[in-house]
């Protein structure tokens, strides 16, 4: 009887049996994703740096400038890709670290839930900034803050 057959016959009792029972290629998928997103993030991050720090004089950047810039569909799409790939790549890298270094299953689950929750909130804020803000309202809100 092979290990795989034995594991199917009952609940796994040794690590060997548990390993033989599990079957998923999700880690393979994440490995491929990390390579592709890693390569995409190099141009995405450097173009972002160049566009925000070198193409424009930092002294001229004010709220009106940011509003005008974030209303261009190209900027929104570019930054959406940057947000998506940076978040997935970074969060998955942190998940790797948690899987490697947090050995107790309950604690590992807890840390992963904290990570996914924080990452989810950051991602939602990012999407809202790029796509859901009405800049006229935000503009008056900010001006109101400044006048107080």
């Amino acid at each position, binding site marked *: 009887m092979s290990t795989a057959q034995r594991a199917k016959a009952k609940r796994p009792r040794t*690590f060997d049996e548990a*390993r033989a029972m599990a079957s998923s290629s999700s880690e393979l998928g994440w490995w*491929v994703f990390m390579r592709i997103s890693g390569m995409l993030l190099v141009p995405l991050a450097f173009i972002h740096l160049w566009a925000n720090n070198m193409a424009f004089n930092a002294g001229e950047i004010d709220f009106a400038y940011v509003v005008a810039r974030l209303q261009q569909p190209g900027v929104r799409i570019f930054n959406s890709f940057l947000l998506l790939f940076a978040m997935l790549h970074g969060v998955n890298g942190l998940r790797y670290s948690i899987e490697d*270094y947090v050995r107790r299953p309950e604690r590992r689950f807890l840390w992963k839930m904290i990570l996914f929750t924080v990452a989810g909130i950051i991602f939602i804020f990012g999407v809202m900034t790029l796509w859901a803000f009405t800049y006229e309202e935000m503009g008056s809100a900010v001006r109101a803050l400044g006048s107080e």
Partner: protein
Amino acid sequence: MQINVKIKRFDPEADKRPYWADYTLEARGSDRVLDVINHIKWEVDGSLAFRRSCAHGICGSDAMLINGVNRLACKVLVQDLGTKIVVEPIRGLAIKKDLIVDMEPFFDSYRAVLPYFINDDPPPPTERLQSPEERAVFDETTKCILCAACTTSCPVFWTNGSYIGPASIVNAHRFIFDSRDQGKLERLKVLNQGSGLWRCRTAYNCTEACPRDIPVTQAIEEVRREMLWRA
């Protein structure tokens, strides 16, 4: 010349935790670290425990952490280390006594990858032939002597003892890329699990530690690429 040897010692019947023992002795530059340790055991303190068999870099018994690097004590010379030598047991496996660790988890992982020839076809009347090019594909990974220097140098294995480890992947590689073997999918299935080869973070510690100069990390990457097209 006079050398100073520090050995991390542990006797489970007497000690609560490992301690450092200091030895000062005469040695020649051409002595191997194994000669030095043998000298200590034979002439200074007979209670020192360590494994060694062939003493010529083939059996893989005497892998130790020598001056911070996993090596075979029988393959490293005193003249290449200087007059201060620090010897510890390999890391990540439970210490049984002094430099002897419990190798069973290591061999369990090794057995899990089915490290033997699998071919259900009836044996031909002559040899199962293979071209020199087909043989060259897995030539490097045939050199493994199961000393555990690679697996116990791996930072993932230190914290995650259930990681299958580079040595097992190297031995899986040896059969996965053998044109005569038919067990590839079974082995890839074992390696595709959560504690299989996806835990590798390409730290390259294994490649540096291997006393047989096997490009271990490269072998792991080759198995991953194979998995990409087969899993």
